[in-house]
């Protein structure tokens, strides 16, 4: 700029125009980049939300299973034992009663005991708690084959089940098998 020749004038205006255009293009690129980043952020947020929901669901399922197990144990160990004590006391008190009355009493107490046992089983099958899903379903299949001679039930396991949700899976299989009880065979893939 020291010389007084006008040669630098086009260069000055070219530089100024270039600076302006570069900034304008940079702003457009900024908008594009921002939108891309925002989309990526949204996807990440959605995936995190889904993961959180999944975790919450697993925690809820786990706590429900724990509570059912506790209730089942209380019914089995508390009410079951009391019923046995009631049976013994009742027969001791009613030893002079007629054979028919004693049978009737025995029948009623057996019915109550069976109902309580069934409640405890439905809340949490003992085999599920003690041995796991595979053994429970295996046992269930054996029972189904035993009580439904016309239908053949087969249990096959692929892979290992997750620890959480085993109770729900067991019920799902049982209910599903219930739906198909009139079919010739029942096949469920879980």
């Amino acid at each position: 700029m020291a010389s007084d020749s006008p040669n630098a004038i086009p260069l000055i205006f070219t530089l100024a125009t270039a600076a302006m255009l570069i900034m304008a293009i940079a702003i457009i690129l900024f908008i594009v980049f921002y939108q891309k980043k925002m989309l990526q952020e949204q996807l990440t947020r959605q995936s995190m939300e889904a993961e959180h929901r999944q975790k919450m669901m697993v925690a809820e399922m786990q706590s429900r299973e724990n509570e059912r197990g506790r209730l089942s144990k209380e019914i089995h160990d508390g009410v079951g034992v009391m019923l046995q004590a009631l049976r013994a006391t009742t027969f001791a008190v009613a030893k002079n009663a007629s054979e028919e009355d004693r049978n009737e009493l025995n029948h009623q107490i057996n019915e109550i005991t069976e109902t309580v046992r069934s409640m405890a089983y439905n809340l949490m099958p003992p085999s599920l708690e003690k041995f796991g899903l595979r053994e429970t379903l295996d046992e269930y299949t054996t029972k189904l084959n035993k009580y439904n001679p016309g239908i053949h039930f087969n249990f096959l396991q692929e892979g290992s089940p997750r620890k959480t949700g085993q109770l729900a899976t067991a019920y799902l299989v049982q209910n599903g098998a219930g739906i198909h009880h009139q079919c010739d065979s029942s096949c469920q893939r879980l």
Partner: protein
Amino acid sequence: MTSDVIGMMSAFWIKSNTFSYAAANFYFFSANILITLFYKALFPRKFGKIFYVVLALLLMIFAYYFFTSGSLTTNDRYVPSHIVICIFSLLFFYQIIKEMPTTHIQRLPVFWINSGFLIYYAGTLILWIASDYLAKILGDGFGSYWIFHNVLGIVKNVFFAIGLWQVTPRTRSL
């Protein structure tokens, strides 16, 4: 925009050549203060002191050139403020990218205002650096070349208008 209005009013009211430069100086003085305060409001409070320091430095440089150049028409004093405002503008873009304040950046009013500042100050920076040279070479023809500066000023104000349009609440048709 306030500084634009102040500059325009000063130029209209004070007609003599020397006082026109005084008006321009007053315009840039007020513009520097207002724009720095504008960016201070945009950035987190913890950076507040930095803006005051930058503003003080800018005004000191401005005053130094103003009192030592011996000529009211020397334009070098405007260059540091242009560089600083470009830096503020780029830093604000960086902050937007970091914080992601909205889903659609086009709906953020300050984005448009900041873009206006960046385009105007980046475009006119070269002109201000070379303005003394241009005035010397072109003489009376300098004004016609200065249209470039004014066009950038219009672009800046269009960006401001878009920004203000984004501030106004949208009404929905029934």
